[in-house]
């Protein structure tokens, strides 16, 4: 439709665009600029070229952060998607138990990450944690999972899966409910068993939904911070140092604006690349299925 006055559309968009540009577009540029300076917030900034990036890359520090973040995200995305899809298929039927399962699983998505992190920290506690106790009864050594460099990161990922599975389940449920029943019935009449129906009717139909869940959980898990800050502070032995926590450390503990900005730039570019790649793969697959 034609606007009544030429300035109308811009006046309507002005507050939104101004806020988005101020807080999301410009800061990316500012971070990229500041990543070439050495600045401790006390003395004036000094241009240092790519020194911040080189310092971060030295001793494989940056690589470790990227690797830990990728492992955490990989575990959370695969765990969340498989549990979410399996549970969606399971609870998509009438009955009280299924309604209860839907509600309780989804509730974790609504509760604060702080509450979830503290709760699991207590349950996994080496001394009095109930899960820790159960694991010890099964013959595990008497250390806390969170205190073990090998297990701390998978333990954080498990907490992430517990928190996000309800989200994936609800999105998959919406996808399942948009599947025409007639399609499944026609397949059954043609003699397709439950597995064949799932493989050739349900799965292709859920392709776009799965792509959506994969991308959103990837972005969410890539930004993980709360579980790290609350449960492990990046330890033990830096085993759980993920990107956002590393940025946070650089600016608030080391007072290094340059290194924090350099990390933020790498973090943002990796996130963009991963999300783009994932969308491409899923699009290609969705195309194949048709």
């Amino acid at each position, binding site marked *: 439709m034609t*606007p009544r006055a030429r300035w109308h559309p811009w006046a309507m968009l002005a*507050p*939104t665009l101004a806020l988005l540009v101020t807080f999301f577009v410009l*800061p990316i540029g500012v971070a990229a600029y500041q990543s070439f300076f050495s600045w401790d917030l006390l003395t004036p900034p000094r241009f240092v070229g790519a020194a911040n990036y080189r310092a971060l890359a030295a001793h494989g520090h940056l690589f470790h952060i990227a690797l830990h973040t990728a492992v955490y995200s990989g575990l959370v995305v695969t765990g969340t998607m498989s549990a979410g899809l399996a549970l969606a298929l399971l609870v998509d039927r009438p009955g009280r138990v299924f309604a209860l399962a839907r509600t309780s699983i*989804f509730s974790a998505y609504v509760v604060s990450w702080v509450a979830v992190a*503290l709760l699991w920290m207590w349950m996994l506690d080496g*001394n*009095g944690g109930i899960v820790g106790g159960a694991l010890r009864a099964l013959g595990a050594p008497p250390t806390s999972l969170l205190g073990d460099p090998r297990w701390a990161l998978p333990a954080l990922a498990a907490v992430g899966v517990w928190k996000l599975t309800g989200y994936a389940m609800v999105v998959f449920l*919406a996808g399942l409910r948009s599947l025409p029943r007639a399609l499944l019935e026609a397949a059954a009449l043609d003699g397709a068993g439950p597995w064949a129906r799932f493989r050739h009717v349900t799965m292709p139909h859920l392709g776009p939904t799965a792509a959506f869940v994969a991308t959103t959980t990837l972005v969410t898990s890539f930004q993980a911070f709360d579980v790290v*800050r609350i449960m492990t502070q990046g330890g033990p032995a830096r085993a759980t140092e993920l990107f956002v926590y590393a940025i946070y450390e650089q600016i608030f503990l080391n007072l290094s604006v340059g290194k924090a900005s350099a990390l933020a730039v790498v973090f943002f570019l990796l996130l963009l690349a991963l999300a783009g790649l994932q969308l491409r793969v899923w699009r290609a697959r969705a195309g194949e299925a048709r």
Partner: protein
Amino acid sequence: MTASRARLLPWLVAAVAAAAWLFPYAWMVLTSFKTLEEIVQDPTAPLPRHLDLDAYREVFAAMPVWRYTAVTAVMAGSIAAAQVALALPAGYALAKLRFAGRPFAVGVVLACLLVPAQATFVPVFLMFAKLRMVDTMGALILPFAASALGTFLVRQAMMSVPDELIEAARMDGASEWTIVYRILAPAIRPTLVSLLLVSFVLHYSDYFWPLVMTTDDGVRTLPLGVALLREQGTGVRWHIVMAGNVVLSAPVLVLFAAAQRQLMRAVGGR
């Protein structure tokens, strides 16, 4: 026999799944009723010896729970309200008005969908520090007052509203203001309710932004206060931390119970 077993198995698995998600809440509540003595002596005892409310008393003594709750609710409420108020005219312009810069404006909104606050907080923090706005409600609310996702969702919803509705309103002499807030807003009510609910719940629970934008007690939010219970050398006093956890999550769970359908539809329907 096989028919009943085929029905029993999903039932059992669903019951186990429900338990896996309900048990941690139950354990949180049970722990919060225990005493320090019980936590030390027999931390995995299933039930507290009696309903002891000391942990809650300690939580209310350790932090100003009501002030933190008020700050958190005002922050989350303002963000949710601002997002809806700003997304309406912006979504209208992007969905219904034809003008030269529209593809550009849509591009800006879509690009912002990909930028998380976790990637921008360093420059934003420094900017607020320069403006002496750290530790103010402004620093907590302003960056989220406009939502790229909200704008996008409102635009999508407005596209399915027929143009005739707007034309008729214009014929009747309604101003654009009236068209956006009085005629189109009710027409896309479910979308607005979803946006309001999801945004409120998300920001009420947020830990990251209030943590980096506050340095003192002035505008501290509830999630920060509860996380501090653990950090302030509580050691093994997990009953206090769990009591804080109950205080933090109970209101959200009550809201969830009341608006479960809307929330599920908002999340599932995208």
